[in-house]
C-alpha cells in the first residue's frame, strides 16, 4: 500500500489516489459499550445496532466477542475494522494455542497487543476506527480495560465508549461498588443502557449482556429493555426553559 500524506497544491486538489488507501471516516458504526467489574468478574453490555450515518441500518450486529478462554472484546466504531481486529486476534490466539504449553494469553495481554496494533495504525494515518473494551478473569484476577482509536489505553473498574462516557460513567461513578452481585451488576448496566437508549440517537432497543468469570465467558441472548415514554419531562420538554428542545 503506497502511503502519502495528502498535500494540497495551489488549486486545492488533494491526492485522491493515496486517500483511497487509508481510512478517512467510518461508515457503518456501532455505538456505546459499557462494562463494569463485579464480585465474580466482569459484565459488559452493548446493543446490536450498526448505523450507516444517521440511518439505523443493521440491527443484528454482535459487537462483543469472546477471545480465547479468558477474555471478551467489545467494540464501538467502524464495524468492518472490528471484524478485521477479530481476524488478527483469531490468528494470535491460534498461535498461542499451538504452543500447547500450559501458558495462555489473558485479557491484559490481549488489550496490550491491540493497543500496539491500534497505535501503529494511527501513526500511519490509517486508523482502525474503533474504541475497544477488553475484559476477563484469569487465575482469579479480574481485568477490565479499553483502548481508543488513537492508541490511548487504560484499565479501570468501569469503562464505557462513545456516548457511554458522558451518560453512563457518571451513573457508574455514583453507584458502582466492588462487591456488586451478578443481579445488581446487570441492573446497574441496564440502568446505563436505558439512559443511552433514551438519549443516544444511534442506540436501538436490542441489547446483549456478557458475563466473564473464572469459569469462562458467556454472551446472553439479545433482549430489549422496558421503556417509559410518558415522563412529564418528555411530554413537555421545554417547560421551564422556553426555546430549548
Amino acid at each position, binding site marked *: 500500500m503506497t502511503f502519502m500524506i495528502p498535500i494540497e497544491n495551489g488549486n486545492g486538489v488533494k491526492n485522491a489516489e493515496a486517500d483511497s488507501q487509508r481510512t478517512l471516516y467510518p461508515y457503518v458504526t456501532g455505538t456505546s459499550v459499557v462494562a463494569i467489574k463485579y464480585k465474580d468478574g466482569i459484565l459488559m453490555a452493548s446493543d446490536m445496532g450498526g448505523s450507516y450515518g444517521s440511518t439505523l441500518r443493521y440491527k443484528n450486529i454482535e459487537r462483543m466477542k469472546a477471545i480465547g478462554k479468558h477474555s471478551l472484546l467489545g467494540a464501538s466504531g467502524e464495524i468492518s475494522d472490528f471484524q478485521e481486529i477479530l481476524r488478527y486476534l483469531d490468528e494470535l490466539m491460534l498461535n498461542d494455542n499451538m*504452543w500447547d504449553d500450559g*501458558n495462555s*494469553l489473558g485479557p491484559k495481554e490481549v488489550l*496490550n*497487543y491491540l493497543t500496539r496494533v491500534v497505535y501503529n495504525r494511527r501513526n500511519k494515518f490509517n486508523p482502525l476506527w474503533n474504541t475497544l473494551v477488553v475484559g476477563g478473569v484469569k487465575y482469579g484476577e479480574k481485568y477490565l480495560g479499553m483502548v481508543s482509536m488513537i492508541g490511548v489505553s487504560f484499565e479501570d473498574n468501569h469503562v464505557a465508549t462513545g456516548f457511554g462516557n458522558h451518560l453512563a460513567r457518571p451513573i457508574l461513578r455514583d453507584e458502582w461498588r466492588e462487591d456488586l452481585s451478578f443481579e445488581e451488576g446487570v441492573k446497574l448496566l441496564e440502568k446505563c443502557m436505558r439512559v443511552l437508549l433514551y438519549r443516544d440517537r444511534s442506540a436501538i432497543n436490542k441489547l446483549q449482556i456478557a458475563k466473564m468469570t473464572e469459569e469462562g465467558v458467556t454472551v446472553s441472548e439479545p433482549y430489549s429493555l422496558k421503556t417509559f415514554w410518558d415522563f412529564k419531562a418528555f411530554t413537555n420538554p421545554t417547560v421551564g426553559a422556553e426555546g430549548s428542545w
Partner: protein
Amino acid sequence: MFRNQYDTDVTTWSPTGRLFQVEYAMEAVKQGSAAIGLRSRSHVVLACVNKAQSELSSHQRKIFKVDDHIGVAIAGLTADGRVLSRYMRSESINHSFTYESPLPVGRLVVHLADKAQVCTQRSWKRPYGVGLLVGGLDESGAHLYYNCPSGNYFEYQAFAIGSRSQAAKTYLERRFESFQESSREDLIKDAIMAIRETLQGETLKSSLCTVSVLGVDEPFHFLDQESIQKVIDTFEKVPEEEEDAGEGEAEPEAATGAAGTGEQGGSGDQDVAPMEI
C-alpha cells in the same frame, strides 16, 4: 577420535548418520568451566565457577540476567554465549512491550533452540559453541532448561555442564528428588555444594563462585559474596591452624587453596584455548 573424512562441513552427514561438526560444538561446551542449575517448585538457582585467564585478569561473566523472571548460565565459547544472551533479552523485552506480560521461559527456550538449529543446516554457518542453562518462570511455576548447540533442549530438575560437571551431576543425582519441595535456602546450599564437587580439592571460597537466584516473588539477582560465604561456612569447617585431613567434609585450607587457584584451568585440560572459559 579421528573422524576427519566427514567432519569438515556442518552440512555433511557421516555414513553412520552423524553431524560431526555439531558434536564437536558440544565438545566445546564440555571444555568450559562448570555451570550448575537447580530448581524447586518456586525458585531456580544458577551457579558457576569463576575462572580467570590468569591471576592478573578478572573472571569471565557466565551468568546473565535476561529479564526479571529469566536468567541464563553458559559454558563454552563465552562470546557465543553473550550474543545468545543478547538475543534472549531482546525477545523477552519485545514480548513484554507488546503484551505487558513476562515471556514464558518455555517459549523463549524454543526460540533459542530454533535459532541454534538453523546453524546446523547452513553450509556458511557454524553451530554455536555454547551450552545454556536457562532458568525462569512461567504460568506453571519455575523451570530449568538446557539448550544444546545441536538445537535440542531439555527440561531438568537439576543439571551441570562444563568441565568436571560429572562430579556435580553425581552429587545432584543423589539429591534431586528432594529439590521440588526444597526451600530457597536449601536450594542455594545444594547449588554451592554441587559447585564444590567440581572444584575437586580446591577450598571453596565465595570468590570462586557466582550464585544467582530467581523465584515466584523474587526477581533475578546475584547473591553477594557475604551471603555466599555464610552458606559456605555452614558446611565447611572454619579455617584453623591444624591440618586435620580426615575430618569429615572439612578441607585443609590456605596452603592447598593457594596452589589450587594458581593452576586455574590447568589440571586435567591440557590445551584450553583462550576463548573457551
